[in-house]
């Protein structure tokens, strides 16, 4: 049996139940074990291990080219690791992009990955399986404060609204694990404050890749720092901000 089948077998398929916390048996714990990724002669990730515990908010930071998005692509199934393995809910797991939604994992993209030929409501409905797609989409739009744009095409909307729409699509499927890839990019201070509130209140496991340090430090329970694909620090925001290796990685000088 394929390893991804092992992971999907125990997943409840009806994830549109209203009281999803009580009935949802989808896993919300993610593990990366000694992951390495090489593209030809370039090592994008080198022996990275990380456990994202249920309900925790874990940030992944590092300078440009550190391998943050590659790490997300590993978990999303877009990139296969050269070495190492992944677990979901404690079981071996080989991710495939279009299975993530069913497994309760939602991911946003850098920038805005949207369907410009559809209305905002339809964009969000794409992320929801089942008969209640429309009501779940409205609920997600409401949560992200963009119901009034439901009938508009995303391409015509301000960037901040489009980011919210993408978040709404991710949340509409009621995920147990939310992966946010630079969600604060291009947003102003008010929008970032709103985003921080949402991440804190969402109540599910969150994996966050972000350059905006204030956001990362204010919302994360734990932070992994990557530099040239290597994990150089893992700890609480206070520990990370006091770590001289992190300062060196970002500023290029010893603290």
């Amino acid at each position, binding site marked *: 049996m394929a390893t991804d089948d092992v992971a999907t077998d125990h997943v409840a398929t009806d994830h549109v139940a209203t009281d999803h916390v009580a009935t949802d048996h989808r896993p919300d714990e993610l593990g990366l074990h000694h992951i390495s990724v090489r593209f030809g002669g370039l090592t994008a990730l080198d022996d990275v291990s990380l456990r994202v515990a249920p309900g925790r908010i874990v940030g992944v930071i590092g300078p440009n080219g550190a391998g943050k998005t590659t790490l997300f692509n590993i978990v999303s199934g877009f990139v296969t690791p050269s070495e190492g393995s992944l677990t979901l809910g404690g079981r071996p797991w080989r991710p495939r992009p279009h299975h*993530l939604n069913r497994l309760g994992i939602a991911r946003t993209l850098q920038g805005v*990955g949207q*369907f410009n030929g559809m209305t905002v409501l339809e964009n969000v409905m*794409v992320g929801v399986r089942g008969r209640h797609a429309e*009501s779940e989409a*409205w609920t997600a739009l409401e949560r992200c404060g963009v*119901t009034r744009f*439901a*009938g508009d095409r995303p391409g015509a909307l301000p960037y901040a609204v489009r980011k919210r729409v993408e978040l709404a699509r991710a949340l509409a499927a009621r995920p147990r694990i939310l992966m946010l890839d630079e969600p604060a990019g291009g947003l102003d201070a008010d929008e970032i404050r709103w985003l921080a509130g949402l991440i804190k209140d969402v109540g599910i496991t969150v994996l966050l890749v972000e350059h905006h340090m204030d956001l990362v430090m204010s919302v994360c329970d734990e932070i992994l720092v990557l530099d040239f694909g290597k994990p150089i620090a893992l700890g609480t925001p206070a520990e990370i901000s006091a770590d001289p290796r992190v300062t060196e990685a970002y500023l290029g000088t010893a603290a």
Partner: protein
Amino acid sequence: MTRPSVRESRDAASDVPRGERPRSLRRLAPPAMILAGALVIVGLSFLLPPFRNYQLATVGAYFCVTGGLTVLTGLNGQLSLGHGALMATGAYTFALAQNRWLSLPVSLVAAIVVTTVAGLVIGLAAARLRGPYLAGLTLAVAVVVPSVTSTFDEIFNSDQGLSVALDPPPGTIPVEQWQAWLCWAGALLSTSLLAVLVRGRFGRDLRAVRDDETAARLAGVDVARTQVAAFVVSAACAGLSGALFAVLAQSVSPGAFPLTLSLFLLMAIVIGGLGSLAGALGGAFLLVALPTLAQAVAEGTGSPRLEGNLALVIFGVVLVVVMLAAPGGLASIRFRRRRTS
């Protein structure tokens, strides 16, 4: 704290467009559309002379294939230059089945099934290709299929083609009127099914894949399966269309399905409005009207040599003019007018 209901939150958003019809009305739309369309066609068929009825029937037959191509190219973003070949597959299957069993329903079903299987095979290959490579694959299909008739001439009778045995129309109904009813029954049924399909989850998946494959995957859409499904649905429509053309001509030959037919079909859905079934209807109408117009112009100038090429020229000019005036095609003009009124 209690969360406002979906309806309350919708009402609170005062500027949410209210263009959506209630769900009950949306469910009724396809049967109502079939009924209204059937009444119009039956009424028209009693008013029109035989040749116009034949043209009406031809529009119906084209509407089947342009509807399917709209789903594939307009909604799913897969370019096909081989739909003429799929029509030929349907037409030849219909002819062989009809000559063997002389049963119109059986032959129509056989044509749809065989073309659907052909579409599945092409779709499986097409799902791995993008852009010019996909166009190249479908172009190869358009070139290869007619040559098959020469290779297996014992079955397909080479360039001469096959004549199609058909029962006479029931009662005293004129042949052309019967053909119009038959072709439009096929067109209305197939496009109503397409309308139902594209309104739901399948339609959203099609458009999601067209707009952003990565985001679609992350939203749970199986991109390859959606692309193959689009090809299968589109091929089934092309097969039905081919069979109806065999009914109209009462014969099939490779010359009836040249490469230019595939190009005409593509131009028709672009002019009509890519991604819109109303646009597919407009395109089907143009496919019949423009050659007629070209013929009239050629006869007016007294140049029979002009007649063969003028249709392509007129199609090209119309394509350029429509793209300049309304890049969304004729259907978008209708839509814009409705929104501004």
